[in-house]
Structures are given as structure tokens and as C-alpha cells.
């Protein structure tokens, strides 16, 4: 038993042996999905992965720095816009378009960060919301570039990823890498500092940490990951319109994160899967599906405020004790 729990064993880039096996298993099971599912369901699974990355990027801020952003939908969407624009209007190859998209999202995130890091709580929420609305307004009104209300279309996907399964595997590989990077990020000394800031900003300041700088970097990194999700979404849809940068997108990301469990990081995928599945299953039966979704949230908040993964974690640890 001692060997199992001992922290100093052979480790893979900071992952314990058991965690490596579990992570490997999950990725392997996920990789088998296209063999069992129909094309449409593979498409849904792809969407789950993409929104999982978005929710996870939000969790870096909300779960580890104590700042819930309502501007991440906009950061995500900027990347989508740039990728579609580059591929459709300027004819850049997909890889270059992807890079520019992520870069643009990171830049926008750093601008948001400059303005937002000095606030916290509800002020942070409102400021990010306002910044997101500005991006939405620009996308809606700058018709010459963004196509306004009608949005933009373009074939963004590289030829080798045209089939549902191939694209799914590419997104899966991407999410595995990105998840690992985020997991490393929040467990690094830098990530620990963010947690310190979440728990007590004044203490961290008196210990000599540059709180705004840490938050700035945290926000920008989070924006980078949201940008990756946005760029993948561009390839998934080959289409972008203002609804991709709208407030509803940010809110959906936050809801996915909360449903999965704030601060659990990988709960994001569970939350994304739960919401996307619910949306699709329920809407087949009733046009009042949004109401069902709302009620489900209320129930989650009452019975599992720590989210699905958070709840599982508490139940498991209680049984193991």
C-alpha cells in the first residue's frame, strides 16, 4: 500500500504511474468511439471535446484563481473568426490559419487581462462580460470583414481530416495534449501561486508576489487554450457568425464547467458531454428543451453544487475512508 500512495516513484512528467494508466485508458476508450458510433454521434463527441477544452480553460481561472470569466466565449469566437477569415478570404493553409486564430485569441485575452486583473468577484464578472459584448458588437457591425449577421463560410478543414472519424481523432489528440498542458500548468509552482491568490490575495501580496502579473499571465494562458478550442470549432463547423462570440457562448462554457465541477479541470469534459447530450436528446422530444435544461441545472446546484465530478470525488473518498 505504501508504494501505491508514495509520491516519490517513477513519474512521467509529474504524473503518477496510476494516473498515467488511467489517462491512457480514457484516451484509448475515447479513441474507439468512432468504431461504435454513427457519424452524427461522432460529430457530437467532437463537439464535446472542443467545448470541454473551452470549459477547462475557464476552469483555470474559476477553479484555480477564483475568477469566473464571462468573456471567454468572445475569446473563443475571435479565434474561430480569424481562422475562417484566413482560410476563406486570404487562402492561407489551415495550419497557418489555425496559428493565427490562436494568436489572435491570445492577444485579445491579454487585452482583456490588462483591464480585468485588478478586479475580482462580481466586478470581474461584469468587466469580462462587457469586454465580450464589445467583441460581439464588432463582429456584428463590421460587415465588410465579418459578414455581419450572416457570418462567414469557408472550407477550413485540411483534406486529410474531412471524414468524421479522422477529424475526431485529430481533435482527441489535440485535447489530450492540451489537457495535459493545462493539468501541468495548474500543478506548477505558478499554478500554486494562483491558488494562493484565490484563497487570499492580501496574503500573497504581503508575501511579495506580484498578484496582478500572476493573474495577467493566468488569464492570457487561459485565453490561449480557449483560442485552441475556438480554432478547432472553426474547423468543425466551417462557419462562423456573431452567435459564436455571443454572451450565450460564454455562459454555456461556464455552465459546462460548473456542471462538471469547478476546480476539477477534467470535469469540464463531463460537463460538456452532459450538456450537449441533454440538448440533443431532449430537443428531439420537446421544443421546451431549454426549460428542461434549466431545471436540470437547478437540480445540479441543489444536490451536487460541487459538480458531477466533484460529487463523485466526495462519494468515492467517503467510501474509501
Amino acid at each position, binding site marked *: 500500500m505504501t508504494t501505491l500512495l508514495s509520491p516519490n516513484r517513477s513519474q512521467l512528467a509529474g504524473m503518477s504511474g496510476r494516473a498515467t494508466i488511467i489517462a491512457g485508458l480514457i484516451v484509448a476508450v475515447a479513441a474507439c468511439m468512432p468504431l461504435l458510433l454513427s457519424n*452524427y454521434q461522432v460529430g457530437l463527441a467532437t463537439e464535446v471535446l472542443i467545448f470541454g477544452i473551452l470549459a477547462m480553460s475557464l476552469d483555470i481561472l474559476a477553479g484555480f484563481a477564483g475568477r469566473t470569466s464571462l468573456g471567454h466565449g468572445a475569446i473563443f469566437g475571435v479565434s474561430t473568426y480569424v481562422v475562417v477569415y484566413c482560410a476563406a478570404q486570404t487562402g492561407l493553409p489551415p495550419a497557418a490559419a489555425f496559428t493565427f486564430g490562436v494568436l489572435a485569441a491570445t492577444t485579445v485575452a491579454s487585452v482583456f487581462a490588462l483591464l480585468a486583473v485588478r478586479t475580482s468577484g462580481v466586478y470581474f464578472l461584469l468587466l469580462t462580460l462587457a469586454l465580450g459584448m464589445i467583441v460581439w458588437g464588432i463582429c456584428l457591425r463590421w*460587415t465588410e470583414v465579418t459578414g455581419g*449577421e450572416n*457570418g462567414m*463560410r469557408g472550407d477550413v478543414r485540411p483534406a486529410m481530416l474531412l471524414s468524421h472519424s479522422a477529424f475526431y481523432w485529430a481533435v482527441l489528440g489535440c485535447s489530450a495534449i492540451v489537457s495535459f498542458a493545462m493539468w501541468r500548468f495548474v500543478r506548477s509552482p505558478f499554478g500554486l501561486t494562483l491558488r494562493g491568490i484565490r484563497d487570499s490575495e492580501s496574503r500573497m501580496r504581503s508575501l511579495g508576489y506580484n498578484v496582478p502579473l500572476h493573474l495577467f499571465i493566468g488569464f492570457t494562458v487561459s485565453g490561449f487554450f480557449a483560442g485552441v478550442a475556438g480554432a478547432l470549432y472553426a474547423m468543425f*463547423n466551417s*462557419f462562423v*457568425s456573431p*452567435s459564436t462570440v455571443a454572451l450565450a457562448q460564454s455562459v454555456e462554457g461556464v455552465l459546462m464547467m460548473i456542471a462538471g465541477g469547478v476546480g476539477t479541470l477534467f470535469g469540464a469534459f463531463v460537463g460538456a458531454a452532459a450538456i450537449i447530450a441533454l440538448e440533443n436528446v431532449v430537443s428531439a422530444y420537446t421544443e421546451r428543451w431549454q426549460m428542461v435544461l434549466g431545471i436540470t441545472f437547478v437540480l445540479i446546484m441543489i444536490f451536487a453544487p460541487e459538480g458531477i465530478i466533484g460529487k463523485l470525488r466526495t462519494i468515492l473518498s467517503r467510501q474509501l475512508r
Partner: protein
Amino acid sequence: MDRRVFLKTSTAAVAAASVCAVPWRSAQAQAGPIKIGLLAPLTGVVASGGKEMVEGVQFYLDQVNGEMGGRKVELVTEDDASNPDTALQKARRLVEQGNCHMLIGDLLANTGLAVANYVKGTGTPYFIPIIAADDLTQRARIKNVIRVAGYSASAFTHPLGDWALKQGYKKIATISQDYTFGHEQCGGLAQVFTEGGGEIAQQFWHPLNTADFSPYLGQLAELKVDAIFAMETGADSTRFVQQFAAFGLKAKTPLLMAMNGTDQSVIRTIGDDVEGIISPAHFAEGSDNPVTQKFEKEYEAKYGKIPSLYGFSMYSGMMWIDAALKKMGGKVEDRDAFIDTVLKTELDGSPLGKTVKLDAFGNPIYDVYIRKVVKRADGKFWNVPIQTYPEVSQFWKYDPETYLKQPPYSRTFQGIKKA
């Protein structure tokens, strides 16, 4: 568990799993019903229009006892939530999971454009009786996206510009919702009106969902123009018409609107304020054509309201598809033949009471009515034709090639001829 039992159970489990998986992946059999995927906004900003779209389709299917081209029809309705991302997802579901033979519907241009881009890849026939984005039958055509019983946005405002000139209007001002559909409808009028010697005094663009029009109405009153053209849809139209009357402009200046402004979905909720508004359209529910009258009466008897553009268009769109299917014995599986047949089909028997055919670009050629809102004997308002422009092309009187060389109408390009 010994090894043999383990082997047995695991083999059985794998076999069971693969048996379950097979029907998921296998396509539907060739015969059987024709599956039509209907996309309509049942929630979101244009939900009321979406419900009337479903009514229109249902109304037609009821009349033909759920059979088209000799085969049963299975209709699958999905809510696009007035949102392009949702529309796209639902379209994928209808095509990839529902194995629908064709898609029909969507109301907002952005939802339609998103779905059009998707079906470009899959080749699924997609019919758009409501989506009016000019370029879908002009600069950005997609072969399997067909505007049966629909119209392109600027097609009806071209003749309205001509009509305005003939009324002797010299100077008009326009006010319009600030998005592509508005730019296109407004541009159609502005181009024809200015090229014929008229003058556009000023153009106002306001965001969708404007609650208070008084800043615009104040400026419009100052301009002292011969007529005002307004392009509004939905709740904006209701508010504009009411405030236009309340501001006292109704008594002074004639009001011309794009067809959606005086559609039944809008005017059935307003009172005397709508009386006398002029608009151009292919469909006028108050027409004295017996076929139109019959359709109007039956629809009103069934749903308790005068049919709107949405109900009419979806009804006629379904009729068009049915006519094509009859010609080819219901063989909807042969997509290319199906698309070609639809493109060649001329629709007679539609509520318009006239034969309609598609031009070389897949856009219907209609007789365009200039309509006026008048009070019916029972106190309800409806649109009555006062003049007819026969067989109007989406390119008006321009040569298609030269017309397509000019940029699409936008806020910055309205086709206005410099004096």
C-alpha cells in the same frame, strides 16, 4: 471465474455489442417513406414565424394525406433556435442520424446560410422557401440549395422603386434594420429609384430590436420627403408602424414598406395604424384570385388566422417538391435527378393562382403585386393588390451578367446613382 467461462462471456458480450452497433451504422433501406427534415425556429427571436412555417408544411401534408409522389412522407421537425450554430447541429442530425432525403426550412438568413454551407458538402437537397439572401441564387449559388416558392430579397423592392417613380415621388428617405436582409431590400429600391431620376434624401440604419424609434422619426419628419420607405420585420415592424402613426407622420407622408413589414404575422396584432401602407410581394392574401381565396379561407378555417408569408411559402414549397416527386415517381434517392427535376418543374395550382417557374439561377419568377393594406368587412386588415408587375426577374430589367458584376447590396453599397 475460470478461463473458459471468461472467454465464453466475453465473446458473447463482444458479439452482443457488435449486433447492437450494426443497425446504428447501417443506412436506412431504399424503399419506405420519404423522409423530410424540417428546420424551423420554434424558440428564439423569430419563434412565432417558425410556428407558422410548421403549420404551412403540416397544412399541405394534411391535404395530401401525408403522401407525396406516391410514397408516405415522414416529417421530422427540428428547432433551429434562431441560432446558426444550433441550425447546423440540427441539420447534421437530420442528415446523418435521421437519414433524411431532403431538408426544408429555416427562417433567418444566417441559419439558412450555415445549413447551405453544410449541405454543400453532403449533397443533400435543401429547400429554402423563406431564406431570402440574394447571393444564394446569385453570386454564391449551391446546386442542391433551391429556392422553391421563395424569393431573393431585392427582387420585390426593384419594382417598388419603379412604382414610387410613377407616383411622382421625387425624394424619399429610407429606414431599415441594419443587417444583410435590410441592406438588400433597401438597396433594391434605392438603385431603381435613383437610376430613374429620384433622390434618396437620407438612409437610416437601426439595430435589430429597436424599442424607441422617436429619434429616427424626428429626423424623418424634418426631411420633408415625398414618401418614406421602411424595412422592418417582426416586433420592430409592429413598433415602427405604431410609433409612425403616433408621431403624426402617417397623416402627412405615405409609408412604403418591404413585404415583411405588412405581413399578416405583424399586422394581425395592430389596429388602424396599418391601414394604407404600401408593400411589394408575390403573395397577397387579399387578392381576388379564386385560388388564393380558397387557400386563404381554408387556412383561416383551420388555424383561425389569415395565412402569413411563412405559412404560404412553406405550403407552396412543399407543393413544389411534391410536383417534382410526382414527375419522377417518388424516386427521391436519386439526388441528381431529383434536383434537376425540381429545377425544371413549373408550379401550377399554388395559392398564387399562376404558374411559377425557376430562372436559370434557381430563383422563382413571380408576378409582383404592389399591395395596399385595407380593412376587411370583418374588421381585420389584409394586403390587397393594387398593381401587378408581371414576371419580374430577380435581376429586374438589368442584364444578369452586368448585374452580378456589381457588389452585393450592403450598408456601404446601395446602388445609388450619383446625381
